[in-house]
Structure formats: C-alpha cells, structure tokens
C-alpha cells in the first residue's frame, strides 16, 4: 500500500465520521462544526489530487465564509437545539427508499463503468488546476456560464435585501 492510499483511507474515515456526526448530533452548533471539519477534510483530499487551488478555495469559501455565516445565524437566533416534537411520519420510509435508489444507481454505475474507472488518470497536463489555468478557463472558455452565475448570485442577494426591507417597513 502506497503512502497516498494510507492517507486517503485516513481522510476518508474522518470525512465519513464527521458527516455522520453532523447528521446525528442534536446540537446545531455541533452539526455546523462537524460540517466544517468535513469540508476541511475534503479540501485535504483535493490537495492529495494535486488541486491546491480548489482545496484552498474550498476552505476559504465553504469552511470559512459560508459556515461562519451559518454558525453566526444559529448563535444569533439561539436555535441550537432541534425540536423533536415536530416529526413528519412519512419522512423516514421515503428517505429510506430514495437512499436505496441512490445506492443502487451508484453501484450500477460503478459496475458498468468499471473499465473506464480503472484507466489511469495520471495523465494530467502540467499546471492543470493552477490559479492561472483555472482563471483563463473561467474567463475564456466558460465566460458566459461564469457571468450568468454571478448575475444569479447578485439577484439572490438583492432579493434578500429587498425582502428584509419590506418587512421592516411594515413593522413600523
């Protein structure tokens, strides 16, 4: 077993454990912290794949910016503890069925595409995933999707501001 495989197995164990802990912990603060841990572990997995740029963006954007906002809102609203009384009776069977379908699909894909996956993926171009190459790809090949995404995000932001404004006026 090469050292990469050992590191991968350790990271995978941590990633899965933190994801499961996030789901089952009763305290929303703990859930948020486990999710941060999961994001950071996934970032290290990216590092293992020689994608340093994606790894650091993952930490900055997901683990840093987004989860801090989540934690901030949870703390501000005092919504640490989940109410256990409000349970949906149909949720568990439906979730189970969907989960099984997903696992089945995943297994089928793995089984039918085995030959493709077994091919080596080491033939990555020199400098692939570096900040410069990601930037030039984004701004040359994928310029229009990139711009549309930014407009979408802007619309969402403006929408949130407009909605909260109206509420404030009514309360006066």
């Amino acid at each position, binding site marked *: 077993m090469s050292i990469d495989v050992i590191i991968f197995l350790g990271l995978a164990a941590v990633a899965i454990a933190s994801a499961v802990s996030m789901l089952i912990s009763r305290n929303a603060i703990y859930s948020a912290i486990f999710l941060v841990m999961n994001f950071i572990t996934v970032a290290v997995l990216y590092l293992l794949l020689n994608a*340093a740029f994606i790894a*650091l963006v993952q*930490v900055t954007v997901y683990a840093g910016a987004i989860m801090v906002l989540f934690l901030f809102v949870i*703390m501000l609203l005092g919504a640490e503890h989940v109410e256990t009384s409000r349970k949906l009776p149909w949720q568990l069977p439906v979730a189970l069925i969907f989960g099984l379908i997903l696992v089945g699909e995943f297994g089928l894909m793995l089984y039918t595409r085995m030959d493709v996956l077994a091919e080596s993926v080491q033939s990555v171009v020199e400098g692939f995933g570096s900040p*410069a190459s990601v930037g030039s790809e984004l701004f040359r090949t994928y310029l229009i999707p990139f711009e549309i995404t930014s407009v979408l995000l802007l619309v969402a932001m403006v929408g949130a501001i407009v909605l909260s404004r109206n509420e404030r006026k009514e309360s006066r």
Partner: protein
Amino acid sequence: MDIPHLVEWAVESIVIIVGLIGGFAYLTLFERRVQARIQVRIGPNRAGPWGLLQPVADGIKLIFKEEVIPDRADKALFILAPVITVIPALIVLAVVPLGPDMVLFGYPITLGIAGDINVGVLYIMAVSSIAVYGITIAGWASSNKYALLGGIRATAQMISYELALALAFIGPILLANSMSLHDIVNAQQGFRWYIWLQPLGFIIFLLAAVAEVNRDPFDMPEAEQELTAGYHAEYSGMKFALMFMAEYDKMIAVSMIAVTLFLGGYWGPFVNQFPLLGPVYLVLKTVVVLFIMVWMRATLVRFRYDRLMAFGWKILLPLALLNVMGTAAFVLVGG
C-alpha cells in the same frame, strides 16, 4: 522527499513556532513599554534588567492561576476553543519566505517552509477565514451573554473586514503577476517596494488587518466597558493565556505578511552578499509595523459598533475595489 529536506522543514517549523511564542511574550512587554512611554509613564521595569523578565513572571503567574470552567459551559468546546484560536495564528506564516535561497553545509536551503507554492496568498486567506471559529466557539461555549455578544461581534467584524483584506492582497498579486509570496518578494528586490506603488493598498491592508486581529480601534469584540472582556470573559489561567497568545501571534503574523507584500519582505542592503541578513531585515521591518499597531492602540479611541460596520462596508470596501481597478488598469497600460 529526501531526509535533508524533511530535516530542513522540521527545523524551520520549530523555529517559526518557537519564534512566535517568544515573540508573543516579548511583544506584550514591547507594547506595555511603548504605551507607557506614550502615556508619560515608565511601564514594567522591575523584573530583570529593563523589565526583560516581565513576560516570564506573567507566564509563571498564569500557570499557577486556577482554571475555572463555568458550570453551564459546553465543556468540550470550551476547552477546544483556545486551541482552535491559536493554531491558525501559528500556521499562517508557513508560506512567508523568511530569507533568500542559500547554500548551507553543501545543501541548497530555502528559508521559509513553502514560500514558492503558487497559491500562497490563497493559503493566507484560507487560514485567516478559519481563525474566526475559535473566537465564535469560545463566545458560545462560555454560556455567558457577554461572551456570546463578543463572539458574535467578532464574527461579524472579521467576515466584513476579510473582504477588504482580500482585495488589498490583489494589488501586489497583479504587480508581481503571481500568487506566490516568493515571487512577490523577489519582484520587490532593490528597494522597489510595493508601498510606493500601492500606498492606498497598504493603508487598507493595515486597517483591515487590525480589524481582523480585533485590536484597538476595532476591538469591539472585547470592549471592556460594555462586554467585560468579550469572548474570553470566562477564560482563566493558561486557557486565557492561549487566547491572548493567539491575538498577539496574529498581530505578528499580519505584520510579517504586510512586510512581505508591501515593504520588500526580507530584502535590504547587502542581503545578496550575506543571505542570513534577510531574516534580520524581515524581523526589523515587522517590529516597525508592530510599533504602528501599538501606537494606534495608544492613540485612538474605540469605534462605535455601527460605525465600524459602516466604515468596513461603505468606505474600506469601495476604496479597495477602486484600488484593484486602478492597479489593474496600471498593469495593463504601464506594465
């Protein structure tokens, strides 16, 4: 990966961490002495010659203090929070080049652990965005309303000023045409410091950095008069010392990063002939930036919270955006 490289990295890591711990101890003394002079006092001068043993005395005192964990605190997170706070402060300097490349005992040596990675600036951003968690968690886990308010204020402040900080990074990146701190420093060789081309960028960086480390005049998270001590109100003994150390080590780290980005890093006269002078210049310039921070604390009063937010979002951020656009135009036309 060969043995000499591993030894080099291990030694450099130890030097950086020990340097930061010692730097923290003596930065407290430096700050107290300088502030005392500014306020026409003398400052601590009893322990050892010129008060040089004062940090040791403080450390011993803190070790023997009683460790109190509040009854209603979340114990696991309460203990974990100082650790989460201090680690980013200790690891962020890994990408800062400490000196020029040199040959020692027949081996080529790079001073600095990973100065030449091509995402160095992003690494700093990633680590500083993680640094918020320790403070936030400390505020929440204390189960004290003042601590919680301090933690929330710190979170809001740090995510607001991180934007301006990130935009201030872009000036040097554009000028050096690289995100590696190694290239940024080398582009400033021969007194072509980026502060001459980026005075606005440097000021924005310094202000945002002071806000990021929660120091006066942006120390709303620990405003003594209203929040007792903010997020570390419930901490005592060595846990308090760790919180304190994180704050001062962050100060040292942002000063060193400011020197690297804007003040020519380790370059100075005769560094080409004597490479070991590099770290000396780096430390001296860092002390100058640290002095400015101490000076600000001794001179300026604390902001009001809404003004702090308005300053960050309505003044600093647009100025930083303007600076980025101006620099980009400058590079496109002149460079």
